[in-house]
């Protein structure tokens, strides 16, 4: 019996309670930060009034969009070198969630942009462009995996693409920054990180932490589903083989 299917046993034991725990903790933290953002934090006039409250979703989702692509690349690399099945399951699971956060970042950015910039979309904001490209990288990754006929091929093709994408990200970011610096005309909202008053910063950081934990919960849940699916496939294959 080949042992590659036996690998995820410890993962299943651990994630069985870790996934729901993360889910609860993440939702609580996000809920707290949203409550702060929507009712407690004072209105900020120079950054567009009430609409700046979108920041409390926009900024964490931007961080997670970037982080999730890094996570995808690291998981792919680990799978490519050590062929650890869990790494591939992690990569497969991160992709749709990362794409979701990327889309959320773009959507909240556009909603925030309409009253502040006067337009839904501004091509010369380098960060928006980088996130948009990341969205396409996620889409391509998922489409490629879906196009492969076996799980093993999907894992290999996905890993190659994720690593090619990862080595390209710095170059893409650099080129987009240069391009934005040439074309920039409108004033872009600047986030002066450390100088931000604590009344904004605390809910923002707690919210980001909540989204991170929520992200982990979703990833673990999808990975669990993947393990179950593979177990089901093994049973199906045995039945087909007349076992």
């Amino acid at each position, binding site marked *: 019996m080949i042992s590659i299917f036996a690998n995820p046993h410890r993962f299943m034991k651990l994630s069985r309670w870790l996934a729901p725990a993360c889910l609860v903790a993440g939702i609580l933290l996000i809920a707290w930060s949203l409550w702060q953002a929507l009712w407690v934090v004072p209105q900020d006039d120079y950054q567009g009034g009430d609409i700046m409250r979108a920041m409390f979703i926009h900024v964490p989702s931007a961080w997670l969009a970037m982080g999730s692509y890094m996570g995808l690349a690291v998981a792919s690399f680990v799978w490519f070198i050590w062929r650890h099945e869990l790494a591939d399951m992690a990569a497969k699971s991160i992709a749709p969630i990362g794409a979701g956060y990327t889309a959320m970042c773009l959507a909240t950015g556009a909603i925030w942009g309409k009253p502040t910039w006067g337009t839904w979309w501004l091509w010369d904001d380098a960060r928006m462009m980088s996130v948009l490209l990341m969205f396409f990288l996620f889409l391509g990754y998922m*489409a*490629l995996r879906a*196009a492969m006929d076996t799980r093993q091929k999907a894992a290999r093709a996905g890993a*190659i693409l994720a690593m*090619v994408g990862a080595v*390209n990200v710095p*170059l*893409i970011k650099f080129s*987009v920054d*240069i391009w934005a610096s040439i074309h920039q005309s409108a004033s872009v909202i600047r986030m002066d990180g450390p100088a931000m008053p604590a009344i904004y910063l605390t809910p923002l950081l707690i919210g980001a932490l909540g989204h991170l934990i929520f992200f982990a919960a979703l990833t673990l849940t999808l990975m669990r589903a993947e393990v179950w699916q593979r177990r089901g496939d093994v049973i199906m294959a045995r039945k087909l083989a007349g076992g």
Partner: protein
Amino acid sequence: MRSPAPIRAAFGQALAEAWAGGAGALLPIGFFAGAAMLVPFTVGSEANQLAAIGTGVLWVALALASLVSMERLFQADLEDGTLELWAQEACPLFLIATAKIFAHWTVSGLPLVLLTPLIGITLQLPADQLLPAMLAYGLGGLAFFSWGGVAGALAASVPRGGLLIALLALPLFVPTAIFGALAAEPGAVGPNILFLAASTLFALAVAPFAASAALRLAVD
């Protein structure tokens, strides 16, 4: 690697195949010219307007035209069994992949570059800038074909993978498109042509290895 013969042979075979396909090599040219021709019809024929967007139009057309025949580059080899033979050669597969991508660029990329001054003139671009800009189009085209080759290798086993190839390759085209458009801009000087050259070198350094890993997957 003992001799360059396999690389030369792979290059020659790819050239012969592209020409033997009849219109195969002409397809990207037709697409390139056709896409550029649509522009005056959609944005209007005003000389100032065309001159302002002409460089960008050429870059977009070049990027898209470089994808037109990418689907068949490795898929044909996979289907007729040639890829299996290459994958068992003592000569590293990334060199074969490079030879094939380069042959493909020679047949269907270089003609596009040679065509840019002609289309540029019709788009009212200043005539004296067109020849220097060809260097930028040539460099950019090489990067497009390299990344397109990676995408083509990844999608080699996918039936009707053309759209998938576009989805995979287009985000990787962005740095080249940005630096290329800046470098080919009439009157533009500065480091952009160097940035373009650097991003093309980066593509030439990374793409062959990624493509060969993808080809090993395709024959598996």
